[in-house]
């Protein structure tokens, strides 16, 4: 077992016994991981804080079962993905957060790019809201976040073949929805690595 993995197992063991400093260390070490996983799957979301809280509560409750088979970071991401999946499965499409709308007007190239990016991302996640939860997660992790199919398979406890299929189906559904949306179509094309 590597030094890093030993560190993870020892930290998890202490945190699982209720040692608050150890729990806090887990929180601080893993919060970026967990946040990134949730953000990639759900996009900017007013419920993100609640979901982060849910994810960490699940993590701390499950810590006694951590055996070090994977890194603590990967293990926490797996739980975050599960929390995101549960959230997607039971919610209605979320409202767009007003905080996303910047106050300043687009007056130069950089600001215009930011506005374009936000609009494209908004449309992307609005489209993702309407596809199957498992397909969405596979697409978000593999295409938006750039993880390998094998990594996504591990995070979602699925086979690589299943992930490949889900990504393909998600892409097909998104392209169908983007047929009348030039902004979304161009952005999807770009995410896939194509030229516009």
């Amino acid at each position, binding site marked *: 077992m590597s030094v890093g993995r030993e560190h993870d197992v020892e930290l998890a063991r202490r945190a699982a016994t*209720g040692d*608050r400093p150890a*729990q*806090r260390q887990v*929180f601080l070490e893993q*919060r970026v991981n967990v*946040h*990134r996983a949730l*953000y*990639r799957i759900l*996009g*900017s979301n007013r419920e*993100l*804080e*609640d979901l*982060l*809280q849910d994810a*960490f*509560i699940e993590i*701390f*409750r499950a810590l006694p079962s951590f055996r070090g088979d994977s890194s603590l970071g990967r293990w926490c991401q797996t739980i975050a993905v599960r929390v995101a999946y549960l959230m997607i499965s039971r919610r*209605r499409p979320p*409202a*767009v957060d*007003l*905080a996303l*709308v910047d*106050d*300043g*007007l*687009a007056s130069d190239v950089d600001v215009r*790019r930011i*506005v*374009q*990016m936000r*609009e*494209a*991302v*908004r449309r*992307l996640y609005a489209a993702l809201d309407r596809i199957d939860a498992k397909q969405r997660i596979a697409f978000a992790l593999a295409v*938006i*976040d*750039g993880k390998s199919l094998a990594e996504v398979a591990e995070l979602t406890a699925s086979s690589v073949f299943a992930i490949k299929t889900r990504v393909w189906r998600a892409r097909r559904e998104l392209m169908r929805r983007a047929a009348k949306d*030039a902004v979304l179509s*161009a*952005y999807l094309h*770009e*995410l896939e690595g194509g*030229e*516009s």
Partner: protein
Amino acid sequence: MTNDERLGPPPVEPMSDAAWSRVERGVWSELDASATARPPARPPRRWWLVAGPVIAAAAVAVIVVGLRAGAPVVAIDEPSRVVSGSAPSSVSFGDAHIALDAETALVVSHDAVRPTVLLEHGAAWFTIAPRGSRPPFVVRAGDATVRVVGTRFRVARSDERITVEVDHGLVDVQFRGATARIAARQRWSSESPAQTESTTTTASLPAPAAPADPVATAEPPPTTPVVPPPVAPPVAPPHRPAPAHAATPRVPAAAPTTRAADPSHVDANATAGSDARTAGTPGARRDGDRAEYDRLAALEARQPDAALAGYLALARGTSRWADPALFAAARLAADRGDRRAVTLLGIYLQRFPAGANATDAKHLLARLQGDAP
């Protein structure tokens, strides 16, 4: 889109330290509550011997309370997270009854010794039977802890802003080291924790499942006629101020100044959807929002950018002026050919689907989308 204009993958927007602190506090609070609520180890029970009577009792409780309240009721007897959707809902456990507003989430830790409710967001009325010699019933919302020995009260939470209103009885609110005692017909807010405000001088908060009272309707009829807002062409010239009479958002009427404090005369279904936006808003704040709205309306012609930013700031609030402010922001953006108009209208319709300006927002959105390539 050329290579130079490629947008790249969406960035992961970092969270503020304050947000992380809130998450961390919530996690520790939940873990502590779970640890407290965990029952001591007991020998295995023959659960099937008690399951029948328990299920029967729960079914009777659900039917009885359901008939009384006329709203969907769920009986729960273990820690649960309860979330209401677009409609109000209610739960009851033990001798406590909780009526949730729409879009409210709370966690109920049913501990026979010390029942605790964590209000994550939204607002709810709590009806608690007298606790007698038992420990107080506790509601946590952000940094505020409400302890009660038997009363009817309401707690509302919007991010870190907490309000508590007591219908009858007496509650203690512990907030950041200080304790405030709130009596019947009084309201407390985390924005001015040292003060309590009488609820008889402002629009009172609604109670669930009761007959309608038009006076209490949170979205009063419009006081100004509405003219469909003008839409600038896609390539708009620099700001063209709209005529004073045009594109006037429907604005709320002045807040009712007196009203019977008896909350049983309020229709929860009619008010709960917007109640979360008005809950606990002090009258002075409402007056301030109205003055701010008027100032921004006057500012539009001279400084449209500032007016738009002001409208957005007002729209982020929870007062009744958030509705007209958000629509005004969208209308002004559309008027100026600002592409954010579509986004703002979409947000308006999601946030105020039955708002006073919803019809106009739909028309304007349809026209803008029709103009889009």
